[in-house]
């Protein structure tokens, strides 16, 4: 079996019909089976578009081009829509920042979970329901039978995000793509969701591609971290290399810009002096 679950070579995402530089340019990286890889970047770095591109979920007006875009040995560019749908629907799980916008507010949790898995795996209603209950248990939701009868708004933000993860897990994906899954959550709930992703990775061996603006968070959970700036990868390094000291000045600056609980209070924070990496300027004209 191939060791690599996701291979991306020279991925470029362009805005059609405009002269702007492509928001994602020449991105290369791979994710191995069972690996947890992080993508970190500030706004406009292209981290979210990269993840949407991989899942072939780019919004209209954006086009994707790559030398290679392979998931589990399957070509994601040449394949038919039908093939893509089957492959991505079952093998790749997406978790977004705002679970409320991915869940249908007017339908009960159970109905949505069962529908998704029946669509992709052709299970009977009762088998799908059983699987839904088991998946909710997997993400540590208590009284799962009761939850199936609740609407999304009846759950807290952390619980909704766990339902989203449970939905993704029902199809036993080999890759979970999570784009800022905890940004809208409180730190204590964030800790629980991170714990959960790590446990799942441990138990089922699903690889995780975790996208975040928080480099400290990624350094806690990832094997490897990809640093993006303005549509390009500036550094792709192991977490131990990151902790030992990254090579790229932008990565270094990013690490120093975030105060942590040990930052010296008597000194000003180091900011990114290099104007090439200045996000505050130039102003949008």
């Amino acid at each position, binding site marked *: 079996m191939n060791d690599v679950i996701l291979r991306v070579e020279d991925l470029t995402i362009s805005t059609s019909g405009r002269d702007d530089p492509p928001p994602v340019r020449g991105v290369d990286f791979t994710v191995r089976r069972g690996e*947890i890889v992080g993508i970190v970047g*500030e*706004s406009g770095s292209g981290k979210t578009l990269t993840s949407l591109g991989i899942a072939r979920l780019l919004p209209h007006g954006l086009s994707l081009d790559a030398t290679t875009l392979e998931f589990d040995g399957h070509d994601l560019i040449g394949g038919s829509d039908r093939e893509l749908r089957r492959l991505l629907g079952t093998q790749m799980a997406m978790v977004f920042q705002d679970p409320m916008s991915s869940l249908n507010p007017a339908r009960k949790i159970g109905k949505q979970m069962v529908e998704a898995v029946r669509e992709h795996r052709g299970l009977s209603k009762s088998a799908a329901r059983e699987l839904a209950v088991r998946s909710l248990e997997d993400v*540590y939701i*208590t009284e799962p039978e009761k939850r199936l009868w609740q609407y999304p*708004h*009846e*759950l*807290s*933000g*952390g*619980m909704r995000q766990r339902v989203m993860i449970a939905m993704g897990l029902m199809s036993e994906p080999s890759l979970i793509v999570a784009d800022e899954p905890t940004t809208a959550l*409180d*730190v*204590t*709930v*964030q*800790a*629980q969701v*991170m*714990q*959960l*992703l*790590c*446990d799942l990775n441990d138990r089922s061996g699903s690889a995780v591609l975790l996208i975040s*603006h*928080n*480099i*400290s*968070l990624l*350094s*806690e*959970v990832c094997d490897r971290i990809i640093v993006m700036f303005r549509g390009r990868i500036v550094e792709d390094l192991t*977490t131990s290399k*990151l*902790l030992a000291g990254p090579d790229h000045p932008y990565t270094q*600056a*990013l*690490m120093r*810009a*975030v*105060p*942590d*609980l*040990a*930052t010296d*209070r008597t000194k*000003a*924070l*180091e*900011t*990114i002096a290099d104007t090439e*990496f*200045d*996000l*505050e*300027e130039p*102003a*949008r*004209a």
Partner: protein
Amino acid sequence: MLELKAIDVTYPGPPPFTAVRHVDLTVASGTTVGLVGESGSGKSTIARAAIGLTPVTSGTVTLDGKDVTNPRGRTLRELRRTAQLVFQDPYASLNPRMEIAMAVQEAVSVASGERIGSAHCVRRATELLDRTGVPRAAMIRYPHQLSGGQLQRVSIARALATEATMLILDEVTASLDVSVQARILNLLRELQRDLDISMLYISHDLSVVRYLTDHLYVMRHGEIVEEGSSDVVFGSPQHEYTRTLLAAVPTMGGNRWRSRREHASVPPLSEEAERAAPVTPPADSVEAPTPVPRGTR
């Protein structure tokens, strides 16, 4: 000095919701005080109650010894001059059709009584924008042409226009990129140093609060659960909740969640923590359209 004594704030129902219960909080002159807590803990309600934007149900608010509880008329106008609130979303508190320089001149004008465009307003507005690090070129631009960090600098400049001695900063860096956040935090440090100004810094980000504040209050479910000098609270937190909160903050290479079995520093998933979060967020944890203090617009 800002003093909140036994403050209760209940939002009218139905059903009525008590967002803040019996809170005592003091910001001594010239100090920066942090207020941390998770969504719905009542942080923003305190910010608003302190300057009369949200009525206090019981208790008293005093500023420099003067009673400013539920201020009206003259008291309110004076309070607007001495205490200013800066919000998370600077775009929402600026007039999209007004040039940056004008927006700041307007605030200067309200504070000084001089006309917009007068020599005083022009000079003072330029001074303030220079002070907060807004580039000269940005002064003749409109809000949508500036970056989030620049807009937040403009908001701070406007708050300083009244020569306020008390700044309440409510999640002012929450929507900024980390590199821009670092610069705004440095600006706030400079203001602490150069101006005789007190700050109440409200945030859910404990690392930022620890970096910026002398004294700290931790809130949960509308109550203060712990209070003390920042060094002491961060160094040896007494309350269980403060410890939980601190343990959850991601740190460089903390590696807690990957190796859970070896050292479980994060409490295991429990329904407890979830139940703590109200199913429907209380009114004040939802981003409300940002009201602008009357005196500043």
